[in-house]
């Protein structure tokens, strides 16, 4: 892009191929990792599988700690339409279901399932399917259990892409471009497993009922082109070679290169009858249907500042350190690791992260390989970024809008069409980190949209609440008016006729309500067969209510008296336990209650746990930001507090029982 114009080259005839605007030619650096074939790794000592490895809903965990799982066993099932399953990559034991650092630009932790392999690598019973002859619908449905997601980096659950859309798919485009420097996993896959890929293409072709298939490969992979040409020799699958240009591997750009068709920005490619799959994904499809093997591993390029850069077949969940060791270890001056390529990848928070379905390449970075950039100069409006943008956007305008938080204008200038390829930053003379500005602006705009939606819902709820209060007020006013009327017409009921029916209905309703009140239906239900703990809890709550001045009405004198006594005792005990709790968070070692309470404490702990679980179940589901109460320390404290209170109340309950027995 910035190289001087080759005048001699201008005179040469260029190939007639569709070409999108812009694009850059970064140095490829692919030769390092293609010297060796795809390597196999030894089983690592643990496999950490994040639940969030794909776009869509988090799958539901189906295992518990301590379970023994077999290779290929479903350990988390897809939840909702857009979701993917997770399978155990090898046989072993589930050792943890906890938060761990995930390979994500934020560096945050997320829920992961950890498996300790037992070394046996024993499979579950696999169920192949006849993808050539079976009915399509059940085949596609079974993909929900396959765990296959797009392995080109976008991780879109594949069963969504194979559902029959409203429009028929006429062309299936296989993305073998792999345009980003350093990444060679698809290249090696094509060189070594081209037959499998072609069979996978046939699977996808049948499932989509596509008429044409085109494989798009960049011309910097001559061996792969040869392999694919050989494998597709007697089929009607076309292999189209496109000139090496970054970012040809972007789905819409590739469609344009091989078909000359621009997918409209507001439509998916399926809506114009084109579907795009990565070579690794179709390979996984083949293995799933032919052998019944769900998605358990992928090819990853481990390259950069390591001693033996190579591609490996890596089980999902393999710790990065294991992979680095297999590549000969990172050289001494390695500063950090990058997931993805040098144009679109992101820094990994540490080398203690697992390999996920999205990891196509890990680059060991050093200051010599990737020089830290100088600080950004002001934009000089040279518009080289606009010349390089493959989407023909105006990056300099988007930069000014993002910088000044002018999100409306940014949207008007099509910020969301940006594919974050990095070509603009690559050519910027002022070293401005343009892509970071666009990512920031997009994040903010999405958050603002969510906030606006939430605000709209809040407004609706508020209006409904005000309407409801208004309605209740009116109903109450009507009822009072009716009662007053009813009192009047009760005296002169003979005189009035038409309003009589209405009065009668109202009077009847009032009678019903009185009857209901007279009956014992206003007492709290489920008060028989209460455990001691529950009784104590209720007593404690009553005590608290009494202490703030809310008293109960309509109780029998016996119960009233008992409750008052219980309340008084419980109040005293509660005050005592509260004071102790305030002093130290651990359960009280109250000498008076320490007698043979160890066993009772265990029982009560179990009861409290059960009660907590019951309370969890009956509590309405609140998703989102409530901190999950499964943090062990919190739970512990709660249980201990419950135990203490239970002990206190139980002691008082025992005493009152004795008293009652004495009275009776």
């Amino acid at each position: 892009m910035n190289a001087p114009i080759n005048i001699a080259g201008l005179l040469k005839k260029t190939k007639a191929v569709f070409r999108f605007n812009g694009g850059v030619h970064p140095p490829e650096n692919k030769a390092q990792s293609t010297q060796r074939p795809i390597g196999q790794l030894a089983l690592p000592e643990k496999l950490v599988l994040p639940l969030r490895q794909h776009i869509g809903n988090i799958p539901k965990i189906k295992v518990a700690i301590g379970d023994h799982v077999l290779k290929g066993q479903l350990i988390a099932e897809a939840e909702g339409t857009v979701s993917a399953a997770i399978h155990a990559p090898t046989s072993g034991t589930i050792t943890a279901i906890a938060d761990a650092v995930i390979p994500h630009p934020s560096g945050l932790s997320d829920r992961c399932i950890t498996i300790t392999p037992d070394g046996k690598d024993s499979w579950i019973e696999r169920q192949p399917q006849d993808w050539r002859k079976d009915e399509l619908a059940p085949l596609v449905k079974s993909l929900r259990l396959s765990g296959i997601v797009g392995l080109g980096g976008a991780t879109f659950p594949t069963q969504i892409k194979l559902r029959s859309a409203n429009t028929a798919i006429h062309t299936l485009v296989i993305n073998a471009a792999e345009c980003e420097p350093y990444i060679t996993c698809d290249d090696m896959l094509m060189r070594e497993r081209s037959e499998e890929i072609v069979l996978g293409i046939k699977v996808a072709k049948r499932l989509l009922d596509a008429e044409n298939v085109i494989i798009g490969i960049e011309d910097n992979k001559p061996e792969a082109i040869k392999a694919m040409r050989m494998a597709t020799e007697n089929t009607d699958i076309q292999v189209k070679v496109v000139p090496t240009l970054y970012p040809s591997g972007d789905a819409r750009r590739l469609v344009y290169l091989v078909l000359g068709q621009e997918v409209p920005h507001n439509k998916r490619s399926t809506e114009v009858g084109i579907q795009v799959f990565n070579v690794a994904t179709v390979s996984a499809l083949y293995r799933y249907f032919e052998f019944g093997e769900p998605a358990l591993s992928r090819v990853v390029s481990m390259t950069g500042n390591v001693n033996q850069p190579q591609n490996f077949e890596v089980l999902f969940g393999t710790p990065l350190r294991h992979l680095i060791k297999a590549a000969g270890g990172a050289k001494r001056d390695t500063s950090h690791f990058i997931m993805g390529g040098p144009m679109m990848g992101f820094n990994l928070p540490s080398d203690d992260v697992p390999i996920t379905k999205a990891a196509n390449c890990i680059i060991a970075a050093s200051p010599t390989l990737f020089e830290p950039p100088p600080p950004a100069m002001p934009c000089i409006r040279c518009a080289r970024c606009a010349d390089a943008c493959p989407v023909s956007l105006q990056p300099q305008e988007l930069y000014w809008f993002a910088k000044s938080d002018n999100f409306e204008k940014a949207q008007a200038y099509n910020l969301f069409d940006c594919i974050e390829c990095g070509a603009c930053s690559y050519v910027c003379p002022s070293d401005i980190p343009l892509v970071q500005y666009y990512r920031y602006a997009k994040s903010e705009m999405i958050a603002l949209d969510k906030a606006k939606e939430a605000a709209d819902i809040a407004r609706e709820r508020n209006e409904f609440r005000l309407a409801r209060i208004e309605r209740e007020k009116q109903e109450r006013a009507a009822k009072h008016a009716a009662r007053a009327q009813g009192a009047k017409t009760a005296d002169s009921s003979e005189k009035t006729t038409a309003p009589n029916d209405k009065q009668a209905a109202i009077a009847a309703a009032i009678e019903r309500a009185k009857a209901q009140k007279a009956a014992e239906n206003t007492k709290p239900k489920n008060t028989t067969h209460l455990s001691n703990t529950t009784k104590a809890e209720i007593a404690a709550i009553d005590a608290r209510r009494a202490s703030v001045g809310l008293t109960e009405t309509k109780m029998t004198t016996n119960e009233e008296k008992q409750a008052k006594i219980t309340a008084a005792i419980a109040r005293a005990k509660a005050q005592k336990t509260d004071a102790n709790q305030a002093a130290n968070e651990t359960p009280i070692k109250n000498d008076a209650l320490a007698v043979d309470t160890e066993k009772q404490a265990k029982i009560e702990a179990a009861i409290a746990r059960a009660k907590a679980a019951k309370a969890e179940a009956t509590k309405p589901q609140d998703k989102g930001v409530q901190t999950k109460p499964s943090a062990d320390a919190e739970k512990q404290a709660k249980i201990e507090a419950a135990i203490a209170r239970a002990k206190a109340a139980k002691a008082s309950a025992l005493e009152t029982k004795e008293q009652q027995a004495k009275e009776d």
Partner: protein
Amino acid sequence: MLIALYIMLGLALVLGAVLGYAALKFKVEGDPLIARIDAILPQTQCGQCGYPGCKPYATAIANGEADINQCPPGGDEGVHALADLLGVEYKPLNEEHGETKPKMVAFIEEDICIGCTLCIQACPVDAIVGAAKHMHTIVASECTGCELCIAPCPVDCITMNPIVETPENWKWKYPTIPIKPAIHL
């Protein structure tokens, strides 16, 4: 002379008819200004502006009774948006009405809750689920962070927690540029 008169009269009648037709055809129901102001306000329904909710505050602004800088949850962006909409000068947030805080969500400590329903009655968007003598809990996705439930609670069991950052709601940060200058050429 007469012709001029007739022409002027005719023009007046025609233009009057056009205006009358436009007044009928393009009539907008209700006062759109209040709705437009309300669309800018964050719907926290907290009452920090001094009015019992966002719609009353919007009405007050439309009537000229309230200033545009009384809404802390809307922040500076809200004041700017209101200033743009109404064509008035921007002014910084009025400190008397509170300060802009990051969005928080209420949380009820269930061990302490006594089921008194006072907080349920106080919540302006019905984001608390519960009944008398039953456990109360906050529906976190509906909570606007208005903090109106904290005061009525007799046992002080409600706390405000900031929203936890998860990979799902994580946002890219504004790029910061290192200060150390480089030496070129």
